[in-house]
């Protein structure tokens, strides 16, 4: 938490993450170029670079898009999620190499501006098979550019988390454009249909994982027992580890119910800093600590400890036997509520 914007520096974890990305990029390009020089020695270096970076960017985009649902299905993938922006920016850089080489190779040195050439060289916009597929790649690259330059915490803070998140959901539009870029472009000259198969497989994987994750969330929400329209069943005491939380979604609210020191408290699951998932955090030194950047809140009132000023909503809880119930109507941000105490029965 902070009284003003403060960036999170590159720590050891982020450096390891970035090194792995770098290694994957180098590994992919070396394998691609090396193997090409053996099996297709007449290919030019520019063509190999264009093909290697294009296919690599697509592979990276697939990894980026499956991290979200994988994290919802298994929390261990969260470490990929929390630094996903690094992967996104790296993918944009690889895609940029692909785009720049294409524009230099196919569109520059002619009688019109190279960027204009992307849109004007092939004007069969009314035909599906003759469609100027380069324009789709260009469009996707523009989206990825805005996402990459706004990937820093500075923009998340200043554009507001809601706007920032909405803007970054454009990655799905970019993905659709890239798929069509491949299908209406190089895949049409691919007699082996390998690209069509790979892109199709990738699409099936992304859609399936998203559907499984969404079904899981919906199932949890639908199975939530409701009592008199206000209280929703969170689960049993044993469901929550000490100093940790269980997250439930009810009535449009995302609520984190924490168990600590023989007590229970519920606050909003959404961190005020960057919409981080507080329910995936932990109570450290008596404060709920966001896993993204370490912003902290007191469990009983949802306020950051002084001198910090962030506040989140709190929710009423009740316990019946071992069952925990939460009222999904939020109290105003920072409302003090007495934690619900529970007795541990003698096992």
């Amino acid at each position, binding site marked *: 938490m902070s009284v003003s914007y403060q960036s*999170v520096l590159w*720590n*050891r*974890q982020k450096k390891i993450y970035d090194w*792995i990305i770098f*290694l*994957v990029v180098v*590994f*992919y390009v070396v*394998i*691609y170029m090396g*193997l*090409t020089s053996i*099996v*297709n020695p*007449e*290919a*030019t270096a*520019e063509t190999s670079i264009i*093909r290697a970076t294009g*296919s690599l960017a697509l*592979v990276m985009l697939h990894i980026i898009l499956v991290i979200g649902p994988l994290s919802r299905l298994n*929390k*261990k993938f*969260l*470490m*990929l999620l929390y*630094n996903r922006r690094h992967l996104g920016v790296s993918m944009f850089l690889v895609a940029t190499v692909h785009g720049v080489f294409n524009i230099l*190779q*196919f*569109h*520059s040195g*002619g*009688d*019109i501006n190279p960027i204009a*050439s*992307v849109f004007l*060289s*092939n*004007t069969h916009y009314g035909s599906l*098979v*003759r469609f100027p*597929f*380069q324009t789709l790649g260009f469009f996707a690259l523009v989206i990825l550019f805005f996402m990459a330059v706004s990937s820093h915490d500075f923009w998340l803070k200043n554009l507001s988390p809601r706007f920032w998140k909405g803007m970054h959901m454009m990655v799905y539009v970019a993905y659709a454009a890239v798929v069509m870029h491949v299908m209406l*472009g190089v895949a*049409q*000259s691919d*007699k082996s249909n*390998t*690209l069509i198969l*790979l892109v199709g497989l990738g699409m099936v994987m992304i859609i399936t994982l998203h559907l499984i994750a969404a079904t899981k969330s919906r199932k949890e929400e639908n199975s939530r027992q409701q009592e008199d329209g206000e209280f929703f069943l969170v689960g049993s005491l044993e469901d929550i580890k000490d100093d940790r939380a269980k997250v439930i979604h009810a009535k449009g609210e995302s609520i984190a119910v924490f168990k600590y020191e023989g007590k229970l408290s519920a606050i909003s699951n959404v961190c005020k800093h960057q919409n981080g998932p507080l329910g995936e955090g*932990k109570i*450290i*030194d008596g404060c709920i*600590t966001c*896993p*993204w*950047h*370490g912003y*902290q809140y007191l469990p009983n009132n949802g306020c950051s400890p002084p001198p910090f000023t962030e506040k989140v909503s709190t929710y009423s809880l009740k316990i019946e036997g071992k069952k925990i119930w939460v009222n999904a109507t939020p109290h105003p941000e920072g409302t003090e509520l007495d934690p619900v105490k529970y007795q541990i029965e003698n096992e």
Partner: protein
Amino acid sequence: MSKGSDHNDDFYIGYMPKAPTSHGGFAKLVALTILVVTAGVSALVVLNQKQSNTASFEYGTLTEVEGVVYKAPVPLIRISDGNGGHQTLLLINFLKHGAGPLLANYQNRVSAPLEKSLLKMRGTLIYHDGVTLLELTEQENALIEFTNYAEAPDPTVEDLGTVALNGEIVDPKCYFGSMKPGDGKAHRSCAVRCISGGIPPVFAIKNEAGDAQYVLLVGEKGQQINKEVLPYVGDQLKITGRLERFDDWLVMNVNAAQDLEVIARREDTDKGVHPHLAENIHLCESIH
């Protein structure tokens, strides 16, 4: 506030320097999986890519040639082949431009008509499938020497009659070596730029055995029709026109508004549908 490293058990916190031990092994497994999958995809894409041909672009190597230049029907230079015969090279400018304007400038420097001058020029050779081009890479400086050559022989021109051919319009600079691939949908835009920039359009015709003939396309009166053919670049066409042999080259005079008929999209031919090719077999035989 405390950074809480002693509370780190299995709590993954992005801002902390070290991930929990339980996450380390999982992270290694994920990283290894990603490496293996990406390597596999890389190999799969390479092993199934379309093979490049043996066309050559001697990038970085300049070659001197000496001969007589023809400005029409397209810029050509006729040089000795060293065996008492001759070879006619198609001249093109640097990047995606035709050599026409350059030859006009050369004409201003040479006192006699270019066709009656012996020109020593330097450029980058591009060659494939029996066809050779010279890129005047140094542009104005590509013309090294010139002398009057009043007794220069006229080009050999032979009328081959009106024919109908099936094939694809390509830009010769890329097709014969500057780029690989120099045809197909991925290259269509580049071919449009080259032809729009003044590089003469070439009609590539093939029979089912893969034998190819290349025909320069000009208008009915020998004028450039580069702009007119742009919408047809990369498609499978049937072109009807008067064919002639101009030295080593076949030249077809066509009315771009009437004589070009799209018979299949390039995408169809890429997938193996190659219509009406049999007609070209006889043509290839008769031309040889």
